[in-house]
């Protein structure tokens, strides 16, 4: 574990490094750049979901829903104010748009979280799955954001710098949080709610906070994604996407930041790396997941998954 000032320097170094590396992003193959950007976005999504599923022990399957809210909100802002890539004004407008997207997702997180976090385990999973789908269907029926046809003409503002700065911010904030006294409160809620309450922790409040922070970063990730692909449809944010993120958290090890980041990297690159074997690609990918789960049910690095099942069985 790094100490506080070490972490702070690592954080600043990461931001500077992403800025420096961003200067060379024109040099590399756009296909590789795309994969690298996806790695970053998936890292944000997986780390933020890890806060909800891994650290606080609330199994959520609605992460893609929050992602879509952030994506659509941020896109509507940049489209409305006609941000253009390269223009100085977009250096202000883009982060503001991302922030607003995150806030909208966080507000949705509160609205969804307060009623649904009374539920536990598989009940919560199904509820969040349903709420994620509701968000998708609502967007699908909103004509001013393109409905099912999707939203086109989103300025391509995301680049290596923005994505990896946010990655650094997410990791910095979540790891700070988890290593603080408050962080132990979140872990306590996961381990034993009755005991946590008996130690003075307002469990509902902690769950909602985790949910809101997780939703916020999912929203920001959505904004980054939309401004990279420049064309989004509601179907991109279906529950398959949510499950993809959950898989990253589980493979990495619930409640283990490093494991989850590595899983996000591996599971983003893997389907691309397997393109050589064409039609067997997804078969191999799935097979690998099966093998990992059989040999390391707690995830590559974590100890959380076993505990999750133990709790369900108890």
């Amino acid at each position, binding site marked *: 574990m790094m100490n*506080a000032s070490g*972490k*702070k320097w690592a954080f600043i170094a990461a931001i500077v490094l992403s800025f420096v590396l961003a200067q060379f992003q024109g040099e590399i193959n756009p296909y590789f750049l795309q994969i690298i950007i996806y790695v970053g976005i998936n890292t944000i999504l997986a780390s933020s979901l890890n806060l909800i599923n891994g650290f606080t022990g609330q199994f959520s399957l609605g992460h893609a829903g929050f992602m879509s809210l952030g994506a659509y909100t941020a896109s509507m802002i940049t489209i409305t104010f006609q941000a253009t890539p390269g223009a100085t004004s977009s250096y202000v407008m883009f982060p503001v748009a991302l922030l607003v997207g995150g806030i909208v997702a966080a507000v949705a997180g509160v609205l969804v979280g307060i009623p649904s976090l009374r539920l536990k385990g598989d009940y919560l999973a199904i509820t969040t799955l349903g709420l994620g789908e509701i968000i998708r269907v609502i967007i699908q029926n909103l004509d001013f954001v393109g409905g099912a046809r999707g939203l086109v003409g989103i300025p391509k503002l995301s680049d290596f710098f923005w994505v990896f700065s946010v990655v650094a911010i997410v990791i910095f*904030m979540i790891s*700070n*949080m988890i290593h*603080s*006294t*408050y*962080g*132990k*409160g979140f*872990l*306590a809620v*996961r*381990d*034993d709610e*009755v*005991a*946590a*309450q*008996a*130690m*003075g*922790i*307002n*469990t509902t409040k902690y769950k909602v*906070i985790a949910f809101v922070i997780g939703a916020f970063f999912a929203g920001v990730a959505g904004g980054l994604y939309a401004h990279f692909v420049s064309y989004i449809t509601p179907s991109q944010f279906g529950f398959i996407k949510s499950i993809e993120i959950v898989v990253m958290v589980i493979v990495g090890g619930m*409640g283990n930041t490093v494991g989850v980041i590595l899983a996000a990297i591996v599971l983003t690159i893997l389907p691309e790396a397997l393109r050589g074997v064409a039609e067997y690609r997804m078969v191999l990918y799935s097979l690998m997941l099966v093998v990992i789960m059989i040999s390391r049910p707690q995830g590559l690095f974590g*100890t*959380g998954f076993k*505990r999750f099942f133990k709790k369900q069985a108890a």
Partner: protein
Amino acid sequence: MSLLELQDCTMKFGGLTAVSGLSVSIGKSDLIGMIGPNGAGKTTAFNMITGVYCPTSGQVTFNGSNLTGKKPYDIVATGIARTFQNIRLFTSLTVFENVQVSFNKSLNHGLSHSVLQLKKFREEEDSVRRTIVDLLKIFKLDGVKDELATSLPYGDQRRVEIVRALATKPKLLLLDEPAAGMNPTEKVELMKLIKEVKERFDIAILLIEHDMKVVMGICERIFVLDYGIKIAEGTPSEIQCNPKVIEAYLGEQVET
């Protein structure tokens, strides 16, 4: 003036009355035992005090304020801490972190301070860490502070639970069968420990216990529950020869 006051508290679960018309009063430096056969309603009484259950009727007053209907985490804030019958330590946390959880309620800085590691957070975090280490030293647990709490021997786990409860800075500590599963040597140590805690932290203690040696050995006053009703109250020697208590435990005397 009494610290904790239960007035005519009744707890019903559907058709079952677990506790009926219980009235108890505990002073601010009492060490009181609660005994009774299995299913007498002792743990239910604890759960009413700590807010896990809300009494069907009656009132719980603590330190002058009404606790009835309050949430468990609000009740902890007023100064009641507890341990559990079946140890409920946080399984993935170390001994140190288990105790650290109890400081959540008293932090003066917000979550944002922690996330951004501002000065206020660092100062308070340091003082919390020092307090925890001091507490663990008193209970001779500082040597295992970085071990997983659930990997400790049973007796030590009980002690961690007590430290964790004390870390919430209670005025009244509720111990639910602290001697359960302990061997005779551990029980002797536990009795010493409970007395020491009471003196050092200047708090009231209410304990549920089946082991009569422990109860009779340390409690100043005992009350006995049977089928949810308080059948006796008094000093250990009074309780020992109370016919009602003997009846509850051993059954009625048969005429010969």
